[in-house]
């Protein structure tokens, strides 16, 4: 099982002192956070892709390429890559390039973005949101698997004898997750291709995501990729920790109360009760995260949202120390002890190469 962090890349004023980082400070902070993730033994760093303020990460492969050069083990991913408004040809090339530079430590998560207006910024029409996600990914899937592609679709100019370059590292495309907050169509798409399905799982109660994951597992089996247990599931999560639970609550409350997504709404106590957010001791984070398995089954990747709502970099780095030293080692052990037989391993480039070679030998 893989553990890591995902970031939205928001520039938010720290509500406790009124300071707002510059874009430059926030971008450098994201890199520092990624490097810290590797240092404390996490497996994955994923960045969002956004094209509207107050978010800074519009150009994920630039950032991930830089982080790749400064890390050795960390898997670099996205949360999410906009399959609707990016040209699939450019995604195919950018991420294959990144794959080579990072020696295969790359995967990505497809999503449809957080705001309607993004569509016209890139020449697309929001009314085609789902069809774009389907057609663009169908093309991307081929571009990574076929050296020469003839293609014609509804949303971009046709391709004739086109080769996307560079070819994927070792001839094996990056692993793909499909992220969705509400659309069963996307769970169905992930199942069809035998790709991973990632449930954001941070802002809403778990029952909502349990339904989507159940659908994905059932359809994964229907399409012949394995048993429902073998489907590849990733989950988000969100935590704020201090050794002492009361200290965590006291310190996080002003950030919670003003947080861009849920601030000025329910109390911290109600929200932690009703959603996967944990504010407390590392043990409480461990306990809550272990319950995810009860709701969603054995899963392959757990990503935590740690740097948002204006938390200072220093605080985020302290959070990562706690996550890496006290939470994740226990979670690795406990999840491994509970895992059912035959559950899929978390996807890595090496494993995908091995699987491809085994399939070739088997003919």
């Amino acid at each position, binding site marked *: 099982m893989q553990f890591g962090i995902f970031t939205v890349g928001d520039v938010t004023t720290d509500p406790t002192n009124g300071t707002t980082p510059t874009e430059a400070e926030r971008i450098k902070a994201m890199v520092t956070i990624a490097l810290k993730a590797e240092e404390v033994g996490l497996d994955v760093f994923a960045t969002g892709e956004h094209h509207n303020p107050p978010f800074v990460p519009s150009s994920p492969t630039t950032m991930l390429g830089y982080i790749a050069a400064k890390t050795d083990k960390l898997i670099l991913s996205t949360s999410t890559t906009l399959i609707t408004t990016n040209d699939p040809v450019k995604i195919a090339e950018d991420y294959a390039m990144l794959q080579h530079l990072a020696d295969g430590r790359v995967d990505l998560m497809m999503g449809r973005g957080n705001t309607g207006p993004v569509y016209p910024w890139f020449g697309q029409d929001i009314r085609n949101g789902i069809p774009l996600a389907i057609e663009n990914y*169908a093309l991307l899937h081929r571009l990574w698997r076929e050296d020469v592609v003839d293609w014609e679709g509804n949303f971009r100019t046709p391709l004739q004898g086109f080769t996307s370059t560079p070819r994927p590292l070792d001839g094996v495309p990056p692993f793909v997750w499909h992220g969705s907050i509400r659309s*069963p169509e996307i769970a*169905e798409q992930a199942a069809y291709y035998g790709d991973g399905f990632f449930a954001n799982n941070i802002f*809403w*109660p778990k029952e909502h995501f349990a339904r989507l994951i159940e659908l994905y597992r059932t359809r994964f089996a229907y399409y012949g990729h394995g048993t429902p247990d073998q489907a590849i599931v990733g989950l988000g999560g969100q935590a704020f920790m201090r050794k002492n639970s009361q200290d965590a609550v006291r310190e996080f409350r002003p950030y919670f109360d003003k947080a861009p*997504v849920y601030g000025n*709404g329910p109390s911290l106590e109600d929200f932690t009760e*009703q959603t996967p957010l944990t504010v407390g001791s590392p043990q409480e984070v461990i306990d809550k995260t272990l319950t995810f398995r009860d709701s969603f089954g054995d899963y392959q990747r757990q990503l935590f949202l740690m740097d948002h709502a204006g938390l200072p970099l220093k605080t985020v780095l302290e959070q990562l120390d706690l996550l890496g030293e006290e939470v994740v080692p226990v979670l690795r052990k406990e999840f491994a002890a509970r895992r059912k037989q035959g559950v899929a391993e978390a996807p890595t480039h090496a494993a995908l190469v091995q699987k491809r070679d085994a399939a070739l030998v088997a003919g």
Partner: protein
Amino acid sequence: MTVIAVVSAGLSQPSSTRLLADRLAEAAGRHLAAETTEIRVVELRGLAVDIANNLVTGFPSPALKEALETVERADGLIAVTPIFTASYSGLFKSFFDVLDNTALQGTPVLIAATGGTARHSLALEHALRPMFTYLRAVVVPTAVYAASEDWGATSGDGLASRIDRAAGELAALLSRAAPKRPAEATLIPFEQQLAALRPFTTG
């Protein structure tokens, strides 16, 4: 068993909005034969903070979820609001804003309102009726408005007879309506989604 949900957005206690809601429910029960009718009342006042939180977070608290499910699962609905500033109260509207927009599809609904003066009675026709029409509910022809003065009126074409006529219309619709079944999510198989996208020009 016919289940009627009653949504009351009255704010004071006791509330004339709740009083009107209870009288409508009682009358509907009478028309339907009370022993086979179950009335489930949802008072929005106690859910006011939860409704506001739902607007902010996008999901309901457990108590609000139960109220929304009560409305969603009911065979019929009696919806009663005080008229504030020429329309339904914000609390009443917000409750229906957080209700799934397919929850009332085909559901018979009786609309009613209270106010200090009869001059606002058409708010039922220009605000509540179109809102429930948008939700694809079936709104009964008689909407019941009770101004302060109506509570003192005697028989004739007063409040009591309007309550009775509206409740009778609701009962008639309910006795004809097929029992409500929970909407099932439809899944479009992926091949079909892909096929729908094939450009016309390729063979």
